[in-house]
């Protein structure tokens, strides 16, 4: 999940932002959101797996 989030964040940052600084900020933010939302959804779905 970490690798997937990192790779997708890199490509999105490269495509959607123009300067290096903006890209880095977007990449970090996007990566953090991926991880946070992934874990949040996993915990939300956890009761249904039992």
């Amino acid at each position: 999940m970490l690798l997937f989030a990192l790779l997708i964040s890199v490509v999105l940052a490269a495509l959607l932002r123009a300067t290096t600084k903006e890209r880095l900020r977007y990449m970090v933010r996007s990566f953090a959101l991926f991880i946070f939302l992934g874990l949040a959804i996993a915990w939300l779905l956890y009761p249904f797996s039992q």
Partner: protein
Amino acid sequence: MSESVIAAVPERRGIPPILAAMAAWILPGLGHLLLRRWGRACAIFAVVAGLAMMGYLLRGVVFPIHLRDLRGDPLNFLGGVGDAGSGVFYALASILEKAGADVSRAAGDYGTRFVAAAGVANYLCIADAFEIASGRKA
């Protein structure tokens, strides 16, 4: 006094947009390389290659494209179209994933998603190369 607004015509850069798009599809990052976007070209190649190779390492399913699937199994066909976005990595799938798919384990499932993500991410990059070559994007 009326003002006439002349719509700005995008200025094309370098190679024709369709050529940039095709190059970007065949080899991820090549379209941007031809447009002299070195950083983007490297990042795109690294990401698409990384996603595809991780997918093959995890032994994910690589969907083939068969026209008969359009009626028989449209999701299979769509999966193939998605995977095909990674260009040369899709073409070489049978060589790069020698052991074949194995979805009996969770890793194989993850691999399938990685391969699909490689294709779909490159479709975004193809569109980006087209936009840059058309002059609609810096």
